[in-house]
């Protein structure tokens, strides 16, 4: 059941139902590890001043 419980965002099919932002972590390593542990497939990144 889990494998087929996907959702649709436009033409994208997603499995993970958690979207994790990258702000406020202690380090880039922690950001990476947290994103991996969350199982997320998608991450919002603030743009503008930061890029």
């Amino acid at each position, binding site marked *: 059941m889990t494998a087929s419980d996907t959702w649709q*965002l436009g033409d994208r099919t997603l499995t993970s139902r958690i*979207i994790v932002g990258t702000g*406020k972590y202690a380090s880039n390593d922690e*950001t990476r590890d947290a*994103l991996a542990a*969350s199982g997320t497939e998608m*991450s919002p*990144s*603030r743009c503008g001043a930061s*890029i």
Partner: protein
Amino acid sequence: MLSAIDRSKYILLPNTAGCYTADEAIRTLHLARELGMDELVKLEVIGDPKTLFPDNTATVEAAIRLVKEGFKVLPYCSDDLVTCKRLADAGCLAVMPLAAPIGSGLGIRNPHNIRLIIENVSVPVIVDAGVGTASDAAIAMELGCTAILMNTGIAAAQKPVLMAEAMRLAVDGGRKAFLAGRMPRRDYANASSPTAGLIE
């Protein structure tokens, strides 16, 4: 910040966090598009600096213009059904109502509103902001949300990586509970052991 993330592993969502007008948000996303980022974007137009509550009017205005320009818009908004309907009508791919103020960790302040939005809007509902711990995530998913967007709930935990795993499990558990359909609430007890056929 972008260098911290493997762009081949994650869909990166350009985000207009910190923008206070529709024009500013649209300019920011034009810049992101120029830089080759995806047309799937998170739209956030803030209306008040202390609460970071969204300016829903400006958000709807920006969404209408961005959809016309070909962007695939995921808008952050209040947990307000009418705003969510307008955003869906504008052609947004999903709506992202807040559960509580950004970074507050206060959890699902108004589950009734979130449920009304889920029941009455045809696009996916993604709770964005306010989830502070795993139980908040489970509650949102049990209400029938499609997904949850979070940042501070993980990043500001004592052990962020462990909390990230807890959130994954809670989202999964809440989703399964929603699909399973919870038992009805009762005011009085209902014995779980059989009461018939016992030795007199």
